[in-house]
């Protein structure tokens, strides 16, 4: 009887699954397959023609500047992820363990507010703040300091990445810490574990999954971001996202841009799957 039940199609459960499957099929798997095919196309007179030509892969991956750009993007994204995680943690720890319920609600609300404004607009606002004659340098000049060059540098790029990722990381970390069983924290204290040691021995291991997910989001957003390295980093040197723009602009080499994009997707998938596997390792 139970065997018959198991074989019967569960239409209710399926109705919840199908929209997601259709969505992912239409907007992820479909375009991905097309992009893979496109990476073998050729361009003649600014028009793409279907073909099976390895030339785009050989040309793109054979250029040293691709690999320079690849490792630079990787370094920047890892850097942004580490910095975001470190900067977000004190805020999320305070919100979760020390702030009142009301304060926490308001804080989360204010962390969401930046997303109401276009990221591009926020980046242009940073240009005004970071410029040599901008707000920060004007403030520093009162103390006889500066002016310092902050725009069109790695520092500028990193500020952009933090603008993009920090609010999200604080929110995700806060939710992860909220899920930590307070009784275990108290038990650790009762057993003589110091406050700092409790954070590393009890709280962080319990909230590991949420922290890893937050970090993965930071990495994905930073790795693919075009706006921060272009408008705050001065495209100097270019990241992979800028390389996609440059490649597609010149001679409409979309197939070569597709090669760069596929390399990015493979990297992102590798990092994301590894991180998730690590996050859930102990639960298995």
């Amino acid at each position, binding site marked *: 009887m139970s065997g018959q039940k198991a074989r019967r199609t569960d239409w209710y459960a399926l109705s919840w699954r199908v929209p997601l499957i259709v969505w992912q099929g239409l907007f992820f798997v479909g375009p991905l397959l097309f992009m893979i095919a496109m990476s073998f196309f050729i361009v003649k*007179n*600014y*028009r793409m023609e279907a073909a099976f030509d390895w030339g785009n892969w050989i040309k793109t991956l054979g*250029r040293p*500047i691709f690999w*320079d*750009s690849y490792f630079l993007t990787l370094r920047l994204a890892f850097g942004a992820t580490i910095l975001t995680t470190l900067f977000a943690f004190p805020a999320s720890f305070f919100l979760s363990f020390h702030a009142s319920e009301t304060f926490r609600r308001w804080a989360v609300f204010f962390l969401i507010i930046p997303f109401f404004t276009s990221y591009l607009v926020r980046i*242009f606002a940073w*240009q*005004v703040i970071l*410029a*040599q*004659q*901008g707000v920060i340098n004007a403030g520093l000049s009162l103390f006889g300091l500066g002016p310092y*060059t902050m*725009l*069109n540098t790695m520092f500028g790029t990193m500020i952009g990445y933090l603008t993009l990722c920090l609010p999200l990381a604080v929110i995700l970390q806060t939710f992860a810490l909220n899920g930590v069983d307070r009784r275990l924290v108290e038990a650790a204290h009762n057993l003589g574990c110091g406050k700092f040691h409790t954070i590393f021995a009890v709280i962080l291991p319990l909230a590991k999954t949420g922290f890893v997910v937050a970090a993965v989001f930071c990495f994905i957003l930073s790795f693919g971001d075009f706006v921060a390295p*272009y*408008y705050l*980093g*001065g*495209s*100097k*040197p*270019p990241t992979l996202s800028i*390389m996609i723009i*440059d*490649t597609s*602009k*010149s*001679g*409409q*080499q979309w197939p070569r841009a597709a090669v760069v994009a596929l390399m990015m997707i493979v990297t992102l998938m590798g990092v994301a799957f590894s991180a998730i596997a690590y996050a859930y390792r102990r639960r298995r």
Partner: protein
Amino acid sequence: MSSILVPTRRALLKATAASALAMPFVSRAWAAVTEINMLAWYGHGEPDVVGEFEAANNVKFKPKYYAGGDNMLALIAQSPPGTYDVILSDAEFVQQLNAAGYIEELNAADYPFDDMVHEDFKKFPGHWKDGKLYSVMVRFGLLGVSYNTKAVSDAEAESYKCFWKPELKGKVGHFDWHLPNLGQISLFNGNGKNLWNLDKGQWDKVKATAKTLRPQVGGFFDYGGTFNGLKTGEMLAMAGIGDWITGVLERDGAPVKSVIPKEGGVQFTESYSIGKGSSKAAIVKKFIQYMLSPEGQVKSANMAAYPANIVTNKGRKALQDKDPKEAKRSNQVDGAALDPVKLIKDGRVHYRDIPKQQSLEDWNDFWQEYKSA
């Protein structure tokens, strides 16, 4: 009791009947608006340029903006014939539009060629083929040294050498397009009118010279970034641009300007064509004529997005009469030392073109390497 707020039944019926009778005319008027699909650089389809023409001719422009000739060609190549009624192109790409059969032949008698400010503009390279006209030049601009007047003196700006000035380290910006930047380096190397026709040795030298400039470079920017960089003083000199960007800032009082250095400058040229297969060729022809009229030329010169120079004598006179301040600022007055027409006649400005002995891809590949250096 009757008022506007509480109408009687008769008043309500009258109003309803009047509205019903008026509606067909209203809807007919709406229906009669002709949509013109435009492919152009940003700003050409905006109300400050086309608003009056739209109102006078009951048309509505639907602009599709591009950035760069490659981008324009790709947009056309990927669209069915007849998609774009009017196409604004940089002159060096007109011949490619024509070769691919994307534009209609024009009748030269429809346009004021006799009134052009320079003889070359009547038979502009690439606009004619086998004696047939395919595109009409409507505006042009000059690319040279753009600089912050507080950081670079006028005397220093007379040579591209100012980009290498030690005080400008990290403060020289590039408009992110290989063609005008490498063209300027080619001019700096003394290639003059052969700036696009480089043999291997000359091309290698251009690359080597460019690499010496790289440590000075503070960033590579699109239109918005270039604009902001100069406005905030973050960039004190900029290669690859001209008055089309500094002019907008200068009008707002920013201490920036553009000049043509002694090594020469590059001219960009914008021309209108009628898209192949357009069903609105008649009204598009009228629009091109409007843009070449004195009124249209003044609008083009004052375009909010980016200014450019006038191509007809009557247009130039109209600008001097209607907006003498802008005419003076842009040196479009007779006798001005930096009169753009005079600079062309003196051979100090060269028409922008595509590389003759290398491919665009070669130039772009080097540009990417240069950016990554």
